[in-house]
């Protein structure tokens, strides 16, 4: 479901499922906990492959944020139009830093310590 890659800017977690919905929300939350546990600094959730997120999926992404330690950061990249709409409607686009692409997210923090 998730693939993790370490970059200098932080950990990239790429979602390999096309839909984060009621069928997989709980698994997603659990897998995110495993992927982010003990990782220091910034985590980028790469959503380029995700076509659809429903309210359960949105809740699971929020839960993943809440599972982090206070000094860990979670940012989102490459939201598809439907996913972006869900975040915008619920105002969750104000809660997460959102980047157009993974590349622009990594570039932004390329020289960050």
């Amino acid at each position, binding site marked *: 479901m998730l693939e993790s890659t370490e970059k200098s800017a932080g950990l990239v977690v790429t979602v390999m499922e096309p*839909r984060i*919905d*009621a*069928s997989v929300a709980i698994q997603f939350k659990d897998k995110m906990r495993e992927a982010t546990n003990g990782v220091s600094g910034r985590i980028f959730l790469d959503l380029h492959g995700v076509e*659809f997120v*429903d*309210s*359960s999926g*949105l*809740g*699971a992404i*929020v*839960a993943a*944020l*809440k599972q982090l330690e*206070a000094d860990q950061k979670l940012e989102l990249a490459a939201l598809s*139009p*439907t996913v972006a*709409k*869900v975040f915008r*409607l*619920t*105002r*969750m686009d*104000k*809660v997460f830093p959102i980047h157009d692409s993974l590349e622009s997210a990594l570039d932004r923090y390329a020289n960050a310590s």
Partner: protein
Amino acid sequence: MTAMQTHHEPNEGDTLLDIEPKPRGRHNVLIELQASNETVRETLIEIRTKLAHHGYSEDFLQDCGIVLAELLNNIVEHAYQDTGEGVIELTLDMHPGALNVVVRDQGVPMPHGRLPEKKQADIDVERLDLPEGGFGWFMIYELVDRLSYSFEDGCNVVSLVISASQDA
């Protein structure tokens, strides 16, 4: 088990697109589906294809996808209490610029016998206090033109209209 049944004898491997709708007019579709998360997912994907073939815009398809997902998920989780069992009956009535939807189930009635209030989850809170739910009905209210609920003959009936002129 096939994801959907209509009132036509389905052949092995039939999908919604292969099955002719009931003879009420070629712009009406009646779908019966089992109330499980997986079946809902398959149904939503097939409905999107059907709506796309009907010529609706991408923006409209997104809105329909969001509304239908939330409606059907609600039935799975609340009306049928996450048992994965129960039948949902979904009627789609396709007009240029609008989709009329009627969803029926025989599960638990809505609390207080009416639709939940439209309530935006409060996000101006500390990280640990962020809401993880309560988004679904809010999005439905935001995207539909009309919405009503009744409980008739043991069935929950939700009717709504999604119109293409809706700004989201």
